[in-house]
């Protein structure tokens, strides 16, 4: 079976202006969303308490709210989590109460109201205000370090303009995934950052495969009597690797969808970030990484003539 014909030749790079414009618009929209709408930051970053409980009979959310209101913890966010008997309760850190025992207060109040054997503790997460700040910094730094690490490696294996093209595509992917999280108001947690880093690795995977082919074809092209234009060679390379790019995205998506549908509520947002990231990453390795790399032609390296000149100098 073959989905992509071997002699396929789509002129991707002809579309690069349109693609870059399209991406620029999406990027601006994403940034606008992130800046003006903001992210639904989870307690990992804001600090706070999250209590997941399972009720042995179905209960009304209003009833739950009523039972924990007297605690005076301010406005709690209460929602169903996957099933009507699984309830998630989020409480912000309080300035005047020792926040680490808020979960105790909530569980006790629920036990008193509904009966201790009706409520089962599934999960308690508490993040102190300072830890939240630290995790925010750590998450940001992790993304930054990954980008730098990748830049250095690609520079070492290829050339600077390839590295810059790869990093541009990666930043593109991250911003859009984060933008999607802002758009749909999905909780942004530590595991989503982990997913982002995975998307970085994955999207780069795709880009590297294309770049590898470009490098190979560039080398072959130089030996030709009448070397072809870089754009044509790049376009050829993208087409040659197209089957692989789509195949791998497809198999990876298969498993990530399996994670999304069968992996359970806790892993849901993580899987969602991966799905968006893989889709965007596949697009960016074709439409962003290579065009950016091409647009930097001759900017960061010396041409062969210049090199020759340099060598001939006394």
């Amino acid at each position, binding site marked *: 079976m073959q989905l992509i014909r071997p002699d396929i030749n789509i002129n991707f790079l002809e579309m690069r202006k349109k693609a870059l414009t399209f991406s620029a618009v999406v990027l601006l929209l994403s940034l606008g969303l992130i800046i003006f709408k903001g992210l639904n930051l989870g307690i990992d970053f804001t600090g706070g308490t999250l209590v997941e409980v399972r009720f042995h009979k179905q209960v009304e959310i209003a009833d739950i709210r009523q039972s924990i209101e007297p605690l005076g913890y301010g406005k709690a966010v209460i929602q169903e989590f996957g099933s009507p008997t699984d309830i998630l309760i989020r409480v912000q850190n309080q300035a005047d109460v020792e926040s680490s025992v808020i979960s105790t207060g909530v569980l006790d109040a629920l036990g008193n109201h509904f009966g201790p054997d009706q409520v089962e503790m599934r999960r308690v997460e508490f993040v102190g205000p300072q830890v939240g700040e630290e995790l925010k910094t750590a998450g940001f730094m992790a993304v930054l370090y990954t980008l730098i690490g990748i830049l250095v490696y690609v520079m070492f294996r290829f050339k600077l303009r390839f590295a810059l093209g790869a990093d541009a595509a990666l930043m593109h992917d991250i911003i859009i995934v984060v933008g999607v999280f802002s758009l749909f108001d999905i909780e942004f947690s530590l595991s989503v950052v982990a997913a982002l880093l995975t998307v970085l690795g994955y999207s780069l995977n795709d880009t590297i495969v294309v770049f590898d082919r470009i490098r190979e074809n560039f080398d072959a092209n130089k030996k030709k009597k009448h070397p072809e234009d870089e754009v044509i060679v790049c376009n050829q390379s993208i087409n040659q690797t197209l*089957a692989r790019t789509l195949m791998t995205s497809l198999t*990876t998506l298969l498993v990530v969808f399996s994670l999304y549908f069968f*992996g359970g509520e806790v892993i849901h947002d993580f899987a969602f970030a991966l799905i968006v990231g893989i889709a965007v990453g596949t697009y960016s390795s074709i439409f962003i990484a290579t065009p950016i790399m091409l647009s930097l032609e001759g900017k960061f390296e010396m041409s062969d003539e210049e090199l020759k000149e340099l060598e001939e100098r006394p």
Partner: protein
Amino acid sequence: MQAYSRWKFWLILTVFIAAVMGTTPNLTTVPSWWPSSMSQPLNLGLDLKGGIHLVVDVDIEKVVAQQVSDNISTIRRTLREEKIRYKKLDSNDTQVTVSLKDMADLATAEKVLKRALIGYDMTQAEDGSLLFTISEAEAKEIKSYAIDQTIEVIRRRVDALGTTEPVIMRQGERRVLVQIPGYEDSARAKLIIGQTAQLEFKLVDEKGDLDKALAGQIPSGDMVAYHEDGRPILLKKRTELSGKDVAQARVSIDPQYNEPAVTLKFNNQGARTFDRLTKENVNKRFAILLEGTVQSAPVIRERISGGTAQITGSFLLEEARNLAIVLRAGALPAPIKVVEERSIGPSLGQDSIDQGLDSIIYGIIAVLLFMIAYYRFFGFVANIALVFNMLLIAAAMSMIGATLTLPGIAGIVLTIGMAVDANVLIFERIREEIALGKTPFSAVDGGYDKAFSTIMDANITTLIAAIVLFQFGTGPIKGFAVTLSVGILASMFTAIVVTRAIIVLSHRNNKKIKELSI
């Protein structure tokens, strides 16, 4: 392609046997002759088996400040011995200030105090007073010791909860990680771990004027303390006995009110001090303070020489039990605070395991079917490699003692997708070579050779992301990074070496093959 080295075949067979043996302890109990390095089943993370996960912050600055202020009595004694008179002795968090009455004593004072205060840097303020600042090395030492002590005390307290295999370790400069697998009572765990358990016995100042003291005129050597209900009481500042003097603590019933109480048994020195204290102060009161709050202030009716005392204070039985535990385990060197908690109930852990396994199984099945449909025989070979890969991950994780977490399961699922990527790269390359008109054998060789550098580059960059993840991540995220890394390394072996061996061996007897099933 015909010239396939034999040693590779043996290598694969060895790895395969090792992988099977390493995975076995996860499925069944292994016989005693099984190699010990392969007898460990996979560690499950707290998020899968359930349990309490706490990070506590130790107020180490307070320990340093305490040590600094403790020096005041040393300085006082030293100056008295040398007959040097002083105007003022004062301390803040890191510094002791000594102001002398007569500047003529300065040189002598400098000399003797320098000798007395090791680990402090001496400077002179403009008004001539001497400043002793604790050196950074000394402060670091004190802090480090405080963390070690904290870990020790927490360990004793957690052990008293009757749990198995708790993890208690330092995290960063001032934090301690506490993991108690299989324990559900998050509230009690926090209560037991978080109490400083500062127990003090002080005499009540019966002669002092409490009202005047409350107005601000506290007699020297005295202090005001409060009962739990807010009643004030005037105490002597001096601590006669403390938690350090306690050898044993247990729950008892206070015969007078028939309420739960805690009975203390002092160690030898404590018993002696208590004996003297009660002998000298018959008909006076002493106060028992816990965390600075007066629990009770009974009158000493007679000398108590047995070395036992009872703390009463209208406890609930549960409270008395918890108090006995923390008093037995000793006081924490500094107040601690829970700054992070991630506790998982047992049912959620089991659900995560079940759903994680489900998603792995469905993911694998989908990929296996897809590969066979798309690459036929070669797809089948890639599938064998994929199953081998799973086996290898399970074995490697078990053998290195890595911990499988929920994100770790996600990492495995993702590895499935990425592991076939190497084969997709190779197979697509082989198809290209065939399209160029090469013979089947040279097409296979060409495909593997040309795809190799791409696979290396692609996997190394993913490894970079995984390593960063490991560095920055906490518990579960670290687990994800580990499985991802192990998965990538394992997939390099299975997708390249193993598939090639199978393809070569299966075509060995058919040298005139015209067409590959790809």
